[in-house]
């Protein structure tokens, strides 16, 4: 009897809890799809993956992380503990960590002044970031030298003209 009561309680919780009513999209969605069909995904549990770009912006116990999937970057609001897993952020000199996040998508977040964002529940690193080694572009260096020569030539010619 006690066991049945517990089971009934669990079923009732799953049926009526707000989480239970939401559809989970286990397959990773792209940013274009999410922005274009924001109304459809609003308040639902979604998966999204991409590269961490810019800064991990800590705000107390939480953090803002912007994740770019190659089309757009979306803001992800996560706990500071989850954000600690991020080691590389993408910019000119670095490729950021590649993350897959699962969280609630908001078309216009009530907590964050109407921003389109994702409140992250779990995070998985699917690729490590790295430093990008910059090699000198020899074509550009050659062109630069040729142009410098041309400038020098003009300078010499103007000197002769003055004389």
């Amino acid at each position: 009897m006690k066991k049945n009561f517990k089971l009934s309680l669990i079923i009732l919780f799953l049926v009526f809890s707000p989480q239970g009513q939401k559809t989970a999209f286990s397959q990773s969605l792209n940013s274009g799809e999410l922005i274009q069909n924001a109304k459809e995904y609003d308040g639902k549990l979604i998966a999204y993956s991409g590269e961490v770009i810019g800064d991990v912006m800590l705000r107390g116990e939480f953090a803002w992380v912007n994740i770019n999937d190659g089309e757009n970057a979306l803001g992800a609001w996560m706990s500071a503990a989850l954000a600690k897993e991020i080691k590389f952020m993408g910019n000119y000199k670095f490729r950021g960590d590649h993350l897959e996040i699962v969280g609630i998508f908001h078309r216009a977040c009530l907590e964050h002044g109407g921003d389109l964002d994702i409140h992250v529940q779990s995070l998985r690193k699917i690729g490590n970031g790295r430093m990008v080694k910059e090699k000198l572009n020899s074509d550009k260096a050659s062109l630069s030298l040729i142009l410098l020569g041309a400038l020098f030539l003009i300078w010499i010619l103007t000197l002769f003209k003055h004389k």
Partner: protein
Amino acid sequence: MILKPRLEDLKIIGFYLGKIILGLALTMTIPILIALCFGEINPALDFFISIEISVLFGLLLVKICQTDKDLNWMQGMIVVSLSWVVAMILGAIPLYLSGHWKSFLDAGFDAMSGFATTGLTLVQDLDHLSYTHNLWRHLIMFLGGQGIVVIALSFFVRGFSGAFKMYVGEARDEKIMPNVINTSRFIWMVSIVYLILGTLALGITGILNGMRPLNAFFHGACIFMAAFDTGGFSPQSQNILYYHSFAYEIITVIIMVLGALNFKLHYHLWMGNRKELIKNIETRTLFVTIIATFFIVAVGLAQTGVYPKAVMLFRKGFYQLISGHTGTGFQTIYAQQFGTDWNQLALVGLILAMALGGAVCSTTGAIKMLRIGIIFKAFKEDLKRIIMPERAIVIEKFHHIREVFLEDKLVRGALIITLAYIILYGLGALVGMFYGYPFIGALFESTSAAANVGLSCGITNIAMPAVLKVTYILQMWAGRLEFMSVFTILGFLFASIKGK
């Protein structure tokens, strides 16, 4: 009889154009300093190459066209309009060399967008762009906002009467100081003081928001330049949404409004004449049009129900509206959201705000507040004439630094420029519709380009037709220069072909 331009005209134009190009080349040394600081080798090379090409081109023009003659009105106007085209081409070279722009046309589009302080962009993978190129994108807004010719007048010209002709050609017909060179220097002084204060405010806010200090101040400087010069570029692809910060939004709103005010008004405020802010026709008109257009946007957004809380509606609606009205183009929503979340009423409110613009002699584009104020006063005067007895003498005045009598000449000038802008907005929308874009979207993007705003509803992207890219470039150019110097160059070309 139309006279064919003489060789001497071309020589004078070439000589002063060459000087302006040399000035532009000098500004490219700033990104090189940044490249050296951040250890970015290839970006530094991109700017070396661009400087060399610019100096080569500028030197050749100066040497071949050597003259000591002063500019006349026609030549001054042509120098200005050509300077902007040449600046676009030369300014696009480092962008194109970075590999972040698909074609030279796309790089040219962004260069014109930057110089004209528009903010529409075709950059790819912006989040991995170097500090060096990012600084250049924002610096060209700072240079273009003050005026390319203003730079030359401030730093490279010792004083000649042709200076005023070039100054006027760049859509600045108000002198703050007795001569234009001092006026140009004052414009720079105001801008640099605000740059320091704005960068500090945004940098500190960035640090408090969790950004790394170096990034916070770099972003602060870039965002300031884009906000004060009502440009709208940003170092990250999400624009202002990247920061997820209400404080950042408030500070940028203040800077955008400062950028939309007349430099002459700044001068009077700096001199302690604060009453001018309340009495001036431009600030009054700006206040009224902001309220009116925000009302339209707010009603439209309330109808959609996308922002259920008033605070959200205000934060999203008011920010995009101020950004549009001041001609900045910062966004805290994605471009596609204009199509999916905003209804037509809200979009019309925003288009109206973009079409109106800020103050004359500011860094904004569009019709501008002084002209709207003058047209409104003229309507009021005509209404009074109808209502009052025939013998009554109706005199209308307005306050713009001093009391000014409303003359027919002023009204005519305001109406002509307003009409020219409306035609320009319409022509761009027609080209957009020709390529299959819906009316509202095409009008939105066209107004944004011609009014040098930079808000986008998604039409501006690398896949848009080349003709549309060229159309928007021409709109940005004509809109920034307020037509006169553009008309002059068209007349010059016509005279070259048909003249005797």
